[in-house]
């Protein structure tokens, strides 16, 4: 079954790096959001199975996206992909309901393991 995926990152380079790291042959329909607001709009519109979310973004950042999702939706699957690797950032993201936290630059094996652990493969 095709997994609907939204990738939210203000950097096109980062989004392309992530796409290149996705497991080969994974059946996913991937859309892009280039900031936090687009991530929220895209999520409300399609309610994707999975959101890859960057934290450091202009205007609406990843923490605010998570906070809004937690108010509006009962279920949301978010994997944070971030360069902000402070233990407190991981803690905050987890408290706000993120399933997992992957540090940038993304390691393909780690990403595949996390996707497998949460039943997306």
């Amino acid at each position, binding site marked *: 079954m095709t997994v609907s995926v939204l990738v939210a990152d*203000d*950097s096109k*380079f980062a989004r392309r790096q992530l796409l290149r790291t996705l497991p080969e042959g994974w059946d996913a329909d991937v859309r892009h959001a280039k900031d936090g607001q687009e991530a929220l709009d895209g999520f409300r519109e399609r309610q994707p199975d999975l959101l890859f979310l960057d934290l*450091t973004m202009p205007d609406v950042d990843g923490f605010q996206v998570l906070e809004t999702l937690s108010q509006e939706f009962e279920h949301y699957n978010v994997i944070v992909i971030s*360069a*902000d*690797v*402070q233990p*407190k950032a991981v803690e905050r993201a987890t408290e706000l309901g993120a399933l997992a936290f992957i540090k940038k630059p993304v390691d393909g094996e780690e990403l595949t393991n996390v996707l497998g652990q949460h039943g997306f493969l």
Partner: protein
Amino acid sequence: MTVEPLTEDQSDALQELANIAMGRAGKSLSTLLDSFVILSVPRVTVVDVGDVADTVARMANAPEIGTAVRQAFFPTVRGEAITIFGPEGCREIADLMGHEGELGDSQEQELLLDTANILVGAVLNGLGEQMETEFKYTPPSILAVRTPLQQLLNAENLDWTCALLIEVNFSLDERGFTCHMLTLMPENSLDYIRRTLDEMLEDL
């Protein structure tokens, strides 16, 4: 001389490399101060040296400088790293690190030099690792205390015509602490960076 700007793709890629490097520096700062550090999106631009001060003033949104620390880096990619602390920067760091009472001027400067050194090392090592170049550094030194930004970044002090400017900043939750780190690199270092970015973009 007209400066050739980075292409949109180059600038976007470099911004992401800076973001990753800043993230590592943020983690070091967060450990040092045992506080959550707020990171914002790094900014990358190629500017004419005459416009550096104005551009930085606009980016930093803070014309008032507490203390500025300078550190030069080299050899393949060379340039200047300038770390600018707000007027309350030292007091905040001292508090968080558990120093009690008044610090003397030399102790204050020591604290800021150490902090700047940690940040610059983390940001540049992070960038260097991703761009496959190693940096060496001069020891940090105090560039200015309570000096207007315009004076600090006077073009006459730099013998370059244009510069690649990368700005990252750190602030602390629930405190007035802010710290801007600028790296300025001259045009000949820019060539190396452009080539490296193009290779990374081709690999995507």
